[in-house]
C-alpha cells in the first residue's frame, strides 16, 4: 500500500483520448475557427441519430477511442467524429464502407 499523501504512480492505461495530466508544457493555441458547414452537418446527423434512438453518444466515443494514437492525434475533432460515425453506421448495417467509397469517388469525379 502506498503511503498516504504520497503521489502514487499512475498508469496511463487508456486509449489515445485518455490524456488528462499527460506531461508537456505546450501552450494553448487560442485561435478559433468558425464551424464549417460539413462540421455542422456531422453534428446535426449525429444528434438526430441519437435523438431517434439509432445510437448512443457513448458508442460514438467508443469508436473514436478505437483510433490509433497516430490517427487520433492527426485528425481534428470533427474528423474523428465523422470517421466514428461511419464506423457505427457500418457496424449497424445501415451502410457499407464500399457504398461510402463509391459515393466519395463520384463526388471527386464531379470536381474534375
Amino acid at each position, binding site marked *: 500500500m502506498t503511503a498516504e499523501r504520497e503521489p502514487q504512480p499512475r*498508469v496511463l492505461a487508456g486509449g489515445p483520448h485518455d490524456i488528462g495530466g499527460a506531461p508537456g508544457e505546450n501552450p494553448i493555441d487560442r485561435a478559433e475557427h468558425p464551424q464549417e458547414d460539413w462540421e455542422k452537418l456531422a453534428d446535426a446527423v449525429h444528434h438526430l441519430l441519437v435523438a431517434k434512438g439509432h445510437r448512443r453518444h457513448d458508442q460514438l466515443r467508443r469508436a473514436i477511442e478505437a483510433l490509433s494514437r497516430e490517427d487520433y492525434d492527426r485528425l481534428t475533432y470533427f474528423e474523428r467524429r465523422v470517421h466514428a460515425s461511419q464506423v457505427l453506421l457500418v457496424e449497424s448495417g445501415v451502410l457499407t464502407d464500399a457504398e461510402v467509397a463509391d459515393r466519395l469517388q463520384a463526388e471527386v469525379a464531379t470536381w474534375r
Partner: protein
Amino acid sequence: MAVRPSPLAVGVGVRVRTTGPSGHVRTPGYLRGASGTVVALLGRFPNPERLAYGAPAPLVALYRVEFAVTDVFGPADGASRDVVTADIYEHWLEEVQDRE
C-alpha cells in the same frame, strides 16, 4: 457487478481502482489509484461501459470525488490547495478506511 450494501456517504475517503473492464470506460487514467473524498452522490445512470457497445445498461451510482491536485500529480508551484473533481461510477471506487 458487486452490489454495494449502502451508498458511499459524502465525506468518506475513496481510492479509484487501478483496473477495470477493458474497452470504453469513463474513469480517466490519471486518477487510477488516486485517493480522494466523495463530495456528492449525483444519482444513478446507465453504465456507459455497456452503452458504448449498444448493450443493456444497468443503472449505477455516480459520485463526485474530489482530489488534491498535489496528491495526484505531486507538488507544483502554487497548486497546493487546488483540487480536481471527477464524476466516477461506483464500481470504480473502493472505500478507504485508514485515512489520516
